[in-house]
């Protein structure tokens, strides 16, 4: 049961082979047994999950279930939830219990009838590529426990890879769904900016943040995206578009699909073993009928520098709300209002979050705004225009998700720039606001390699189609870590 896809679990629930309470208990028991070592979850509340499962069973019994009703899912701890605390991986919010649910949570829970298994670990305020900035400690990669699961949605990725959950929510500001999906042999989708509501999703960089699904397969991600997305008047950047079925094109043949290969993603900055797996995947796509097109994204090397201006600038504004007054941590000793702010923020934020707030404050300050912030926004346009030109010649773009496989815990915590370059292939997608995926495409020295698929705006169904056909032909996504007990 724990290895089944969401579609199979839905069928098992519909056929009454198992109840939601039984299925939820199965995963909760695994979390209890395996999580102490992996640290994928920050908060678990068995009774609350089982209450949701009982409600799902009642819904199924009344014939009012949907395709996902009764299926358990793990929630990244960036999504506000009533009941569970919402920490965002920070001491600042270590005891925070939200008075409302994020729209994504409400849609998955109240709408689709899914059962939340708990809240997953993450880099503090989603700022990190290894899950090592979490106040709640690093997460281990189930493929090799000496290695990071990626970040910032590292807890979600690790939970699925260890089969502590069949699926999870994630968020992606610069690669935080795709890079951990790559490191943990999962399928993850960052939708077009504006497709999934940001209401109740704690803000990091508002013009880049986007929630999305993480699961074992493209088919599962399609079902989840169907349940997560949609217009939300409570998010001012939510797009009011006709409802789509993202699973509609899954089986469509790939004959005639034009795949763009950006030369900038195939340079010597990528680990040769990762590149070998990516090249094999490209050959597979050719066998599936796709045509390969050489393209160029000439400004993509500027995406990391521009991102480390724009994201911190937006973060410094967003995180100014954490002041020790209305909610969250407050320093115990202070001698004035200013001192309360200074000490609360010094003690409540971790080192990486502070660094990014400082960068943001600097690039937005008088005298530096034009040289840094506006320059970064101009480069952002150049990057978006590169994609627009590329999509005249191709339907989707393919390349590596990350230049390496999962690195060792502690390996990059002192080399910040090396850590940041882990997202070199994913960040441009966020700057442009495009949809992107990572799918498993093989192994390098026993560690999973992710293949990145990038689409034009609103091309999620096409990406899912390309991913699904590849998965049907290869089966890399069905590989599971050897030393994880997959029984029970």
């Amino acid at each position, binding site marked *: 049961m724990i290895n089944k896809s969401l579609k199979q679990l839905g069928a098992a629930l519909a056929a009454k082979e198992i109840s939601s309470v039984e299925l939820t208990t199965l995963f909760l028991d695994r979390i209890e047994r395996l999580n102490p070592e992996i640290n994928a979850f920050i908060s678990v509340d068995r009774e609350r999950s089982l209450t949701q499962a009982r409600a799902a069973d009642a819904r199924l019994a009344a014939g009012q279930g949907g395709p996902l009703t009764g299926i358990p899912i793990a929630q990244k701890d960036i999504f506000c939830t009533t009941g569970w605390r919402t920490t965002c991986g920070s001491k600042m919010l270590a005891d925070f219990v939200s008075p409302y649910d994020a729209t994504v949570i409400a849609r998955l829970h109240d709408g689709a009838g899914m059962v939340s298994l708990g809240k997953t670990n993450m880099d503090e305020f989603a700022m990190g590529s290894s899950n090592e900035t979490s106040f709640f400690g690093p997460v281990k990669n189930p493929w090799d426990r000496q290695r990071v699961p990626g970040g910032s949605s590292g807890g979600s990725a690790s939970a699925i890879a260890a089969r502590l959950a069949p699926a999870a929510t994630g968020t992606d500001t610069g690669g935080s769904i795709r890079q951990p999906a790559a490191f943990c042999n999962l399928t993850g989708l960052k939708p077009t900016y504006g497709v999934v509501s940001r209401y109740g999703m704690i803000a990091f960089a508002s013009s880049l943040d986007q929630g999305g699904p993480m699961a074992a397969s493209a088919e599962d991600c399609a079902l989840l995206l169907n349940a997560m997305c949609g217009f939300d008047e409570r998010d001012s950047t939510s797009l009011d578009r006709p409802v789509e079925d993202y699973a509609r094109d899954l089986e469509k043949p790939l004959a005639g699909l034009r795949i763009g290969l950006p030369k900038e993603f195939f340079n010597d900055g990528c680990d040769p073993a990762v590149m070998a797996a990516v090249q094999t995947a490209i050959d597979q796509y050719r066998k599936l009928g796709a045509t390969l097109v050489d393209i160029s994204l000439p400004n993509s090397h500027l995406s990391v520098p521009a991102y480390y201006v724009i994201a911190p600038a937006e973060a410094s504004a967003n995180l100014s709300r954490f002041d020790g007054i209305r*909610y969250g941590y407050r320093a115990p000793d202070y001698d004035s209002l200013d001192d309360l702010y200074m000490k609360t923020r010094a003690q409540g934020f971790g080192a990486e979050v502070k660094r990014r707030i400082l960068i943001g404050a600097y690039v937005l300050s008088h005298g530096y705004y034009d040289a840094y912030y506006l*320059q970064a926004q101009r480069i952002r*346009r150049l990057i978006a225009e590169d994609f627009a030109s590329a999509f005249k010649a191709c339907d989707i773009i393919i390349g590596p998700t990350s230049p390496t496989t999962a690195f060792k815990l502690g390996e990059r915590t002192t080399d910040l720039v090396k850590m940041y370059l882990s997202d070199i292939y994913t960040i441009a997608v966020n700057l442009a606001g495009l949809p992107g995926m990572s799918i498993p495409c093989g192994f390098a020295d026993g560690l999973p390699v992710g293949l990145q698929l990038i689409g034009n705006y609103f091309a999620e169904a096409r990406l899912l189609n390309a991913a699904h056909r590849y998965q049907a032909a290869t089966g890399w996504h069905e590989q599971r870590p050897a030393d994880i007990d997959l029984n029970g």
Partner: protein
Amino acid sequence: MSLTLEQVQRIAHLARIEISESEAGTTRDHLNGIFQLIEQMQAVDTRGVEPMAHAQELSQRLRDDTVTEADCRAACQAIAPETEGGLYLVPKVIE
């Protein structure tokens, strides 16, 4: 570009984050490392390029000026560090 310790303290004050003298040096070194990465942008000629603030070129959506949310004051104040009589308590600001 290279930040001085004084600049680091000035930015930290702007951001309302206390940085001790012992932390300031490390913070400066980290920030200078990141700015070295960022400086690559300065070589690019972007004259005539319109800054892109957002992925979707949308104008701000407006809603009717009516009350839509229920009163959640009690729930919101329940999670505050210190409240009294429906107010948030802060240290004395005016002597």
